[in-house]
């Protein structure tokens, strides 16, 4: 599946990237999307990559066959959005072996918003026989900045697509490789990480880490080093997600934490966009 998508989008000019090296809640946060979409020095950018996403509060100890704290997204970003972007997207489903005439494919309104990143866009859930297989978004704003060049983002749910292609009913039974199921590979992982996320993650350490990452991000922003600062924003965001899963964040604090991450993301975005000449090539 991944190979097919890499080949398909690679042929269409996408740079095939690798997953990012720190925990992300969504492929959107990978600099290959977030930074490149903001980057005014490069009005054109196409990339495709797999992203393992970490969502501590979604874990169910590997007991629930549909919910996991770790799963895979396949992310495509096309900036600017080509006019035939939907045709290209549906072409990728055909490449995966989905017969568009046999199945019911439709675009169901679903607008996207990520408050911690100060980001929103309009788009759809793509349904294949009522299964949501992709989130499609035309970004409008990132880091609180209105985008000049509008990109299209496609986020394929790889497990969902796999269920569909293999005709399986639970992710645990997905054939990950011949004779090896998803459950064989990840179930124990889910159990242990769920226990960590919900029960063992040290609250005081995480709180301290959040503060440290936040402080470091600010220092780096002060020194005009937006790229390293961005990693600190991501790390503080992950620390917050863990605290949230631990139930250590009250409703009041929750809003405050989200506000702090958003403030960092905004500051980062402003600095990054302002440093157009120096933006990484």
């Amino acid at each position, binding site marked *: 599946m991944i190979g097919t998508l890499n080949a398909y989008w690679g042929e269409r000019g996408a740079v095939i990237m690798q997953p990012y090296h720190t925990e992300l809640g969504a492929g959107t946060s990978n600099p290959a999307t977030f930074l490149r979409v903001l980057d005014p020095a490069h009005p054109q950018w196409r990339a495709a990559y797999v992203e393992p996403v970490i969502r501590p509060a979604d874990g169910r100890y590997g007991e629930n066959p*549909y919910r996991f704290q770790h799963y895979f997204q396949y992310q495509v970003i096309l900036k600017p959005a080509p006019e035939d972007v939907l045709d290209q997207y549906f072409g990728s489903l055909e490449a995966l072996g989905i017969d*568009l005439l046999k199945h019911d494919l439709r675009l169901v309104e679903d607008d996207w918003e990520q408050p911690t990143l100060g980001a929103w866009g309009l788009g759809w859930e793509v349904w294949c*026989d009522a299964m949501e297989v992709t989130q499609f978004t035309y970004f409008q704003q990132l880091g609180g900045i209105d985008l000049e060049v509008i990109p299209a983002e496609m986020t394929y749910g790889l497990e969902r697509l796999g269920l569909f292609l293999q005709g399986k009913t639970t992710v645990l039974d997905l054939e990950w490789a011949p004779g090896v199921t998803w459950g064989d590979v990840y179930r124990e992982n889910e159990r242990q990480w769920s226990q960590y996320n919900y029960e063992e993650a040290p609250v005081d350490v995480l709180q301290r880490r959040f503060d440290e990452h936040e402080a470091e991000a600010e220092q780096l922003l002060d020194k005009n080093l937006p790229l390293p600062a961005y990693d600190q924003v991501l790390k503080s965001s992950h620390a917050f997600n863990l605290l949230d899963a631990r139930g250590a964040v009250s409703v009041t604090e929750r809003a405050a934490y989200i506000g702090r991450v958003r403030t960092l993301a905004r500051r980062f975005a402003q600095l990054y966009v302002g440093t157009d000449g120096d933006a990484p090539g």
Partner: protein
Amino acid sequence: MATLLVEIGCEELPASACREAERQLPELAKRAFGVEPSSVLVTARRLAVLAEDVPEQTADQWVKGPPVAMREKAAPGFAKRHGVEVDELEERDGFLGVVVAGKALAEVLPDQVDELVRGLGFSKTMRWDDSGLRFPRPVRWRLAMLNATRILGERSYGHRFRSGTIEIADAGGYAEALRAHGVEPDSNQRRQEIVAALDGLGEWSDPNRVLAEVVYLVESPVVLDCSFDERYLQLPSRVVETTIQHHVRAFPLGGNRFAFVANGGDPDTVRAGVENVVGGRLEDASFTFERDVKVGIDALSERLGAITFFQGAGSFADKTGRLAKLVEALGGGEAALEAARLAKADQASELVREFTELEGHVGAEYARLAGYPEAVCAAIDEQYLPDAADAPLPGTETGRVLSAADKIDTLNVSFGLGHRPTGSRDPYGLRRAAIGLGRLATEGKLMVPRELMDPEVTEFVEERFEGLLTAPVEYVRAARRAPVRDLGGVARLAEALAALPDERLGPIHTAYTRASRLAEREQGAAEELEPALLVEDAEAKVAAALERVDAEIATALDAGDFNAAVEAGAELGPLLDRFFDDVLVLADDRAVRANRLRLLLNVRDTLGRLGELSQIPR
């Protein structure tokens, strides 16, 4: 005269945008082309307008220039601007002007189509390129035709996957051309087809009204008869219903069957896929459900201390404690108290985390499984009713008590924290809660003591009466100032005042207003009324009647008979009329004067129990 077709091709528009466009297009098209469209055809992928007998030439236009008197000074410039000589200018109604000839429709049509596209207003729009155009989703093609002539664009597009481009031979044949390619462009037609097919499958329901959306999700509807494993029927029925309606926009057919409206594809393949998705969702819900049931509703309720109700308002355990007190104050019995104790337990359940819209219902199901009496379960189920302006009230008395307690608490707490709704901002749904509470007190005839609400809340809730009751606003305002103990009483008093004929209300209104004004202005009223000082017949009669009427009003108010109270008050009218005619209140004798002022104050106080009558305009 020609037949005109304009089609705006889009990427899949949300159903709400389709409906917004459908509402505006007739008027906008008429403004742009001068003719009422014969049909407006809307799908997610196209907004089309057809108009017949469209003049192929736009109308000549009279352009008004300077007044005749300014012929020397201003006419040459005006004439030059319009490319004519001064003596070619025409004179109409004292002004000079010029007739600008109409243009060929074909020439102006592209601009008019643009005007149409930009003229549509939507609640949510986006950008997708650098054209600056905003629309709910990207516009990908435009087609305009006059009869068989293409004016703008080359072609249309059929079903996204089944057919690519389509040639439209003739504007009038547009709909048929699309139908030949499997697209039904008329939303009414699609709705009828879907409903007919659903009817063909038997009893179907649409509790969450998804049909209005489905009509715009498909261009070639095919209704599929689907089913799920019967073991999921053990789930709360609303969980199944929500899964079917919300997650796949399908229609429950009763039992384990449901209908999915496909937009093409191979029916067997699509059905199998949809059944798999629904099965997966229900399996997920079952997993969650079984975990919750194993915990049980009582243990769930013990976890409420860890869940915040909202910022500054403590936990759901705190809320539960307050609910119990309110239920008691509202006269709720044992079942209502039990229901209050368990009302919020489902906030700790995993199933409500997945299906937030089923709060209350999930708790009721868990209470049933734990063997609680039906009165308790029904009240838990109904606690959020009425949840919309036209929604029903709870069907049981315990449900009404619990619902009122919940709303009073939410309002008190929110107002206490300063979350008063402003303009269109009402994140905690306080208007809905206040209207619901008002309806419980009026339609639901629930006795809601006003003292249970903070003064600000009482005011807010009673302001809602202004829109809820048939009595005019001023009568509501008058009644709100009466010392009535319960919320419903305020409403009934307002209705009773409004029902009193003008000739009966007039005299007491006047007396009350005059008495209030005099009492406000003049000092020195006697502490007590002295009967011996009532020297005039008219004042003696008022004093005598007042004593009787005051008792009558008190009795009627106690009995909740507001019509009788108002009628009793009105009896004073003729006597007061005479009093003001015959008696000089500000008499020279200080004692007499003080006594008369006291009498008027008593009149004011007695009539004041019927409300602040001066609010009613005369």
